[in-house]
């Protein structure tokens, strides 16, 4: 294999900040990316994730803090002196160059001998499965193929770090799933180090080794996909990770990690996140998957308000007599207006301070 993996140990962001006038787009972002990792920067739009990526790439100047590649400080360097590879949201392929010239662009700029460029471009074409397409112009390729060219152009220069800015957001659903698997395959095959920006939690969960959740320009949580999915640190992250049921009440009992809260006369129990005294205001959060139709005696009586078909199962909203709205999961269709009994799985519900 000619294309080699990253030649560095770590990228360190040290209190990296960026302000636009009086608006802080990024505040004190500190993070260490180790060689070989696949890191997803996840957050809703406007959270600063693309700003962070552009600061690392050098396309945007930082207004505070520093960036180190091993022991070398790089935040003052121009983008062309940082040596990274980048995949842009709209691909940014050079429309007047063939696929081969696009892929070989970085090598040509570095003055690599022609014979070696040809060899490495061939290998990159193979890696992204575009053999035989090298002579075409980007305009003659489909969206997915253009995306592959953009990836090949970024990896062929053997960068210490590959930066990806929502690379799948322009593709249709089927292609997005295919390319997601391709990106991870290429990352593994190359032993690359990838920093991947996305607003799609599914993408982050399935691709990344570690996920960095950004909100309002700050890091809210860094963790493995499973940690983030099963026990987000904060209520806002839980919301973002799909905990769509949120009921506010008061803590009535606690026992180590577990607690019970009272929501308008109904008791729910779940795992405690954070420290809340008995009597303190709290929110219990649960995914639709964990609110299910039940035959138990203590189940909540509710009336179905909406129901959506999701392929194998149904997801609906229901309202209890006390006016609590719950989003639930059901294996069978329930008619709107019907009375059902719901229970909330205490093993997966989380309790946060309100």
């Amino acid at each position: 294999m000619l294309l080699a993996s990253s030649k560095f140990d770590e990228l360190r962001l040290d209190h990296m900040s960026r302000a636009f006038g009086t608006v802080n787009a990024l505040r004190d972002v500190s993070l260490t990316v180790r060689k070989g990792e696949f890191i997803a920067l996840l957050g809703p739009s406007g959270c600063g994730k693309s700003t962070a990526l552009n600061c690392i790439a050098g396309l945007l100047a930082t207004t505070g803090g520093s960036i180190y590649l091993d022991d070398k400080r790089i935040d003052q360097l121009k983008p062309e002196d940082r040596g990274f590879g980048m995949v842009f949201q709209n691909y940014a392929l050079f429309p007047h160059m063939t696929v081969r010239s696009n892929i070989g662009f970085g090598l040509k700029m570095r003055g690599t001998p022609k014979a070696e460029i040809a060899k490495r471009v061939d290998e990159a074409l193979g890696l992204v499965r575009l053999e035989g397409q090298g002579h075409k112009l980007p305009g003659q390729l489909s969206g997915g193929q253009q995306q592959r060219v953009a990836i090949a152009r970024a990896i062929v220069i053997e960068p210490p770090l590959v930066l990806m800015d929502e690379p799948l957001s322009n593709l249709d659903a089927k292609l997005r799933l295919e390319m997601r698997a391709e990106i991870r395959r290429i990352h593994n095959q190359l032993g690359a180090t990838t920093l991947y920006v996305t607003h799609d939690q599914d993408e982050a969960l399935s691709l990344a080794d570690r996920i960095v959740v950004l909100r309002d320009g700050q890091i809210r949580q860094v963790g493995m996909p499973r940690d983030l999915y099963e026990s987000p640190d904060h209520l806002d992250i839980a919301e973002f990770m799909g905990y769509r049921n949120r009921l506010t009440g008061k803590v009535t009992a606690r026992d180590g990690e577990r607690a019970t809260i009272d929501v308008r006369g109904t008791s729910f129990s779940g795992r405690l996140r954070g420290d809340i005294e008995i009597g303190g205001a709290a929110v219990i959060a649960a995914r639709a998957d964990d609110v299910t139709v039940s035959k138990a005696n203590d189940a909540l009586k509710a009336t179905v308000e909406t129901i959506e078909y999701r392929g194998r199962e149904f997801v609906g909203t229901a309202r209890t007599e006390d006016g609590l709205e719950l989003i639930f999961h059901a294996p069978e269709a329930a008619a709107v207006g019907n009375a059902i009994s719901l229970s909330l799985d205490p093993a997966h519900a989380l309790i946060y301070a309100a």
Partner: protein
Amino acid sequence: MSSLEHTPPASLRQRLALKGLDGVTLLVVPAALFTLAIFVYPFLYGLLLSFEPKEGGIFANYQHFFSDPFLYNTIATTLWLAVPVTIISLILALPIAFRVRLMTRQRLLTTILVLPVTLGTVLVAEGLLNYLGPQGWFSRTLMLFGIIDSPVKLTNNYWGVFASLIITGFPFTFLLTLSYVSGIDPALEQAAAVHGARAWQRFRHVFLPLLIPGLAIAFLLSFVQAFAVFPSAILLGAPAGPTRVISIAAYQAAFEQYDYSMASAIAMIMAAVQLVIVVAILFVRNLFYRGSTAGGKG
């Protein structure tokens, strides 16, 4: 299949619309009539007139033009003004356009640059006569600082016309260039920079190839404008000698010798010279990439 057989035939209106003809097409009619009346007809009339000389065979006017150096030299004189002026305008416009494209408040600058267009060539010529003339501010300032001993001669010669053509032609060239430069997806430059291209390489490998078709058009339009130079060649130049451009020759034939046939012949020669340049530039333009300047799906 049966549903296809029973499809009612498309109406005449639908069939015309498929060929791109609909009610909106009629809006072209006034413009087409206008072009016929004030361009095509006079052109054909002039062409025929040029073959009806006062004396001699049908090509007598053309033979006369190409045998008299006082006449045929006007082609070289005009080219010698129009080509350098066009090239220098483009060379000036390009870097300024690259800077302006990044500015957030382009409107003020654009307004300032467009002003000379509105002034008209005569006003610019008058201004330049005062400014660049022997007693003008330009020479007086240089003399005040002891840079020169006697006034530099910048009017009533080649350089006066040159300066006036640059001033009136530049804004036009600049605005065209700016629109082409701003039309290039900024992500392309970012992609080039991240992958190692320095400023000059980004210009050479990304911007320039994408700009060539636009620059060719800007060149042609500026060139055609400069080639028709007339008022400033008389007011600021030496119309009997170094700036005796082809339009002066046509003017003299028509209004001093009252030989409309000869004047038409000169106008036809003028058109032919421009046509040769236009075709040559368009040919070169076709050798380059001419598609979209976006970097991918939007």
